């Protein structure tokens, strides 16, 4: 599959999904004007990638700010991963947070709560 790379902007995070390495990276802030328009191709890429039966998928998220609509989109992405995990795919997610920002950690914990695949909050 072709690598999905979207450069970071002031209101959107860097997206670097590399199917060859099985590594999906999201890094930055997310508050686009139209979050669905931004996340739709990303979610579709992930769903297509998961359908290709990859061996393992690793995810690295560093999201310092995400607005509510972006949060919903990320949940949609994580839901797709959860479904694949339930079907036997090996998945691990590392969510990086600023160790001095309790709010960032709290936010990551909210995402972590409902998923059963390995979801590690890493303080940096």
């Amino acid at each position, binding site marked *: 599959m072709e690598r999905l790379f979207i450069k970071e902007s002031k209101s959107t995070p860097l997206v670097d999904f590399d199917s060859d390495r099985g590594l999906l990276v999201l890094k930055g802030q997310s508050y686009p004007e139209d979050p669905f*328009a931004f996340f739709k191709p990303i979610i579709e890429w992930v769903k297509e990638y998961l359908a290709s039966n990859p061996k393992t998928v690793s995810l690295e998220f560093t999201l310092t700010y995400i607005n509510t609509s972006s949060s919903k989109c990320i*949940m949609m992405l994580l839901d797709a991963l959860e479904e694949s995990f339930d079907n036997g795919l090996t998945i691990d997610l590392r969510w990086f947070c600023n160790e001095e920002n309790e709010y960032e950690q709290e936010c990551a914990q909210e995402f972590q709560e409902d998923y059963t695949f390995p979801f590690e909050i890493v303080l940096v």
Partner: protein
Amino acid sequence: MKDHKTFNNIFEEEMAVYQEAREFLKKGNLKFSDLMVKFDSLINQYCRLINITRRLCSISDVQSRDLKRKEREIQNILDHSDQGFLTFGKDLLIHKEHSSECIRIFGRKVVHKNILDLLRSENEDQNRLIADVLHKVFDLPPGEVQLSYINELPNLLKIQGNYINIKYKMISDDLDHQNQTLMVVLTDITEKRKTADQVLFLSYHDKQTSLYNRAYVESIIPQLQIESNLPLSIVMADLNTLKLVNDVFGHETGDKLIVNAAKIFLSCCRKSDIVARWGGDEFIMILPGANQEVCTRICNNIKSMFKTLPADPVDQSASLGSVTLNNWETDIISLIGVADRVMYNNKLIERKKTREMFVSSVEKVLEIKCPSYLEHNARVEALARSFVKLPGVELNSQEMDQLISLARFHDIGKVAIPSELLKKNTSLTEDEFKIIRQYPEVGYRMAHSMGEPLLAQSILALREFWNGKGYPHGLKGEQIPQSSRIISILDVYDVITHDQPYRSKKTNEEACQELQRGAGAQFDPQLTNLFVNNLPSLLS
């Protein structure tokens, strides 16, 4: 208004379940078992939706708290930066006061106010410039041309009576630079400017008199050396007896004398003249366009003004030296040197008169402090004149002159003693006695300043005792100058035989007994005997 389609899209999946259920209901004639299946599916979706909504609310709240915290932190920093931050766009209306300093600087809230109104001053050219630039810059793309326009804006404005330093910075929020915002950073530099002005003032002014100082005069000499200033006169002035006043009455009194003199120099000169303190007790007056006649008139005015000053505590005077230049064959520095020499020459000529004036002033002060001062001195002097004629007292003419001077000036140091102590009719406390004991030293300093070192030594030794138990140095026997030994006997005799604030007068016999009791202790025994044995003839 937010387009709800965006939100519908992110709930696409949930909306699909809802739409399907509605379509299903529209069909009608539904069986219970089919309804149950759909109902079950709806409950699951509803539950999922609640879960999603709960998490979204929670995440959103956390994010909001974080944003609010960051906002507070930034606002706090801005509010404590002592700078005002304003932004405005092409319409020139202020978006927001980004820090509380803006309200302080403008004295009111400025949101939605026009920046041109806020920066408007009495300088119409400047107002036009600001308006022209601000109307142009928003139509220009970021770059050197835009920056060159912004650089034309004034960086210092007076707002609400305060000096405000202003910096401008164009900010682009998007890549195509359609929404440019100009940020204005305002810094109140009034205090800084005041301090700088004060430093500048102090660097060119004398702090004590507020007159210009020597550094100022030296800095403007090149500017003075122009044809239109001719004829130019320079007057140098030196305050007489300042050192004496400082020594006797203290530096506070001396400082007052300097300030009084400065006022006289300033009042006698014209507005165009430069009056400066040249050094300690020296002043300079540079009089552009003043010929010799004008200069002489100013000098005479100064002398007259000094004479009108009340003796506070003594009469004041100044020696003056002046010179007038009619062409620039000599430079001002040389001219100052000439005026200085003339002044010193005059000072030497006036020296005797100045000292007499000072002594006379001091005596007047003393007469007020101790009403019997002059009479006492006259009696002691008369006794001294008779005493030196006694057989056995061998004084040469110089020693005799010194003795007579000592008789006149032996108590002159009392001028520095507070009147209350001199007039006190009860016993002195230890502290008061310490003050009283200072008068021979004050007298010594005065005599020294008047150029009379021998007289000074004699005054200082007046309270030394024959047995070495006197003060200030504990001199003994003939270490004490003879004149001091004689005058101390005559002085004490006269004090005993005349009424004092603290005791009534005694008879000659009683005085002689007292002197004899002190012979060998306080007084020279030989001189005491000579005095006591010859008292009748001395008094006649």
